[in-house]
């Protein structure tokens, strides 16, 4: 009944809009999954840039979810490290297959997130930001001083590539060593990102998303109507950490090595920046942000020692002139409107 009312309020354009979104999404998928990888098949560098941007987007999606419960999370680097080391240790020391390591790394990071989250999620605002930042450092130092188990400063190397994944003798995923490794990692990253986005999108548009949103706006009020605040905020944080862990495992296996400083405070900040540039109000925000900024950063390679300088100036400009993100620009709305008129 009320959905009808909603529909009329938005005007007759609503169904068209849903169709348009599907078309745009379809085009994006075709470009992402078919056009790009075949066009750049020979250009490994570009493939690698897109692959990295995909996984950075994936990790940032988790950070975005913690924004929806009203927390500024500068600790995602820690969980990428945890996931990365989990994969490194399991695969080199225990010979576990990557296809087991990958979900396991996510779970280990998620469980660690639950343990930390139970304590630190009591803090809010700047305090939560500072404590998660400290967490990033603490975890880095932990791996640095882990002795033989973590390999100290040089970390762990010679991590095997993903092996064949088969079921009843049928090869589902080929051994990465026997195919074009770059293409293989490209598709692994793409699948992760698409799945990751779908999950976060589902969460944020289901009742869970509304509960998270209510926590963001007033935890006391949520509590007063019977919402188990502690449970849901830990849930959001654990999912975030899971994403971090999976992303970390991916980088570890694609670099075939890991060391304590691969993910630091700056990376954790960048994840937030990606979310911000894309726009916090949009599920796709972190993806837009990560792709733009990471590709930009790569392009700035040309400028060598000025790379960081230019990047920082850009970052400052974004915060000054685009505080609500790129997707907040009115461009899309105008686009939809013009379509509707033509229809």
């Amino acid at each position: 009944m009320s959905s009808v009312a909603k529909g009329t309020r938005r005007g007759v354009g609503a169904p068209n809009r849903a169709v348009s979104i599907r078309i745009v999404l379809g085009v994006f998928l075709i470009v992402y999954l078919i056009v790009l990888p075949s066009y750049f098949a020979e250009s490994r560098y570009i493939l690698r840039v897109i692959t990295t941007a995909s996984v950075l987007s994936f990790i940032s999606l988790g950070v975005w979810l913690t924004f929806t419960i009203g927390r500024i999370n500068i600790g995602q680097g820690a969980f990428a490290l945890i996931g990365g080391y989990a994969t490194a240790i399991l695969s080199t020391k225990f010979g576990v297959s990557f296809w087991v390591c990958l979900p396991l790394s996510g779970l280990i990071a998620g469980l660690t997130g639950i343990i930390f989250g139970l304590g630190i999620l009591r803090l809010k605002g700047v305090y939560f930001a500072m404590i998660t930042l400290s967490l990033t450092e603490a975890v880095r130092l932990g791996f640095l001083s882990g002795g033989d188990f973590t390999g100290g400063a040089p970390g762990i190397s010679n991590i095997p590539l993903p092996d064949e994944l088969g079921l009843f003798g049928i090869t589902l995923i080929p051994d990465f060593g026997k195919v074009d490794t770059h293409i293989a990692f490209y598709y692994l990253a793409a699948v992760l990102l698409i799945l990751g986005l779908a999950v976060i999108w589902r969460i944020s548009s289901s009742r869970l998303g509304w509960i998270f949103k209510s926590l963001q706006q007033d935890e006391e009020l949520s509590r007063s109507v019977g919402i188990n605040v502690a449970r849901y905020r830990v849930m959001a944080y654990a999912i975030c950490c899971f994403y971090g862990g999976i992303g970390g495992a991916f980088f570890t296996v694609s670099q075939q090595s890991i060391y304590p400083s691969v993910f630091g405070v700056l990376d954790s900040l960048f994840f937030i920046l990606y979310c911000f540039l894309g726009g916090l109000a949009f599920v796709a925000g972190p993806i837009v942000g990560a792709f733009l900024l990471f590709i930009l950063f790569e392009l700035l390679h040309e400028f060598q020692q000025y790379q960081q300088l230019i990047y920082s100036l850009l970052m400052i400009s974004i915060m000054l002139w685009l505080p609500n993100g790129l997707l907040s620009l009115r461009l899309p709305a105008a686009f939809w409107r013009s379509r509707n008129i033509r229809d």
Partner: protein
Amino acid sequence: MEQVIVNSLILGMNYALIALGLTLIFAIMNVLNFAHGQMYVLGGFITYYALQVLHLPFVVGLVASVVVLVLVGLLSERLLFRRAIRVSTREESTMLLAAGLALLLESLILLFFGEKQRGMPPIISGVYQVFGVYIPAGRAFVFAIALASLIGFVTFMQFTRPGRALRAIAQDKEVTALQGVNINRYGALGFGLGAGLTGLAGSLLATIFAVNSGLGTAVSIKAFIMVMLGGAGVVSGAIAGAFVLGFLESFGYAYMPGSVTYMLIFAGMIIFLVFRPQGIMGKPWG
């Protein structure tokens, strides 16, 4: 043992300057200054440059560091933070802006001063012996200047008109604004002072520990630890946090590898804050 205590006092005194700067900026502007460590490094490099390259006396280097950093603070407030606070209500945006500023300062420092670690000989040579403890004269000198600055700062905040206005703003911005105090001007003053304090610390500690362009983030993190331990936005808290960290660090380094020390400090701090989120001196909130 006594030696370690003396070291931690010297360290704590200088850390107090850093933490006070951070807490001041936080209290006045509600900005978490991620660029604090880079400001410290800049202070250190300016003193190094004045002494080792231009061969000027230490006083000139010290004053130059403070003056430049005060200017950097004033300019950042005027050109960046004032606008960001106006256009966005989210505290994340000033935080990221500060992170951008940190990157900017770091790359500028790298361009101007290079990536080498830079140290210098002590300002005063010789060693004092007090109750069987050896105190290098250079360190005693640094301690004395830091102590004097700390007393100066607290006196300023306590007994002067602008100091009282700053404290009032830290207490309650809206009420203070209603009383006709120009918040913008004091925001700039707070930012300038905060940056100046950390520049002073950078200048002083550069004579003991040397500086390099990559040190900034680590210093910022130390500053966050101190402010969190002590209680954000509270002057006494910043000082308390600084001495606690000074002691923990000196004792830890004396008996353990550095990375283990800091890992334990972090772990201890996180546990401490879970039970006392407002820190040692902070007021309970919520």
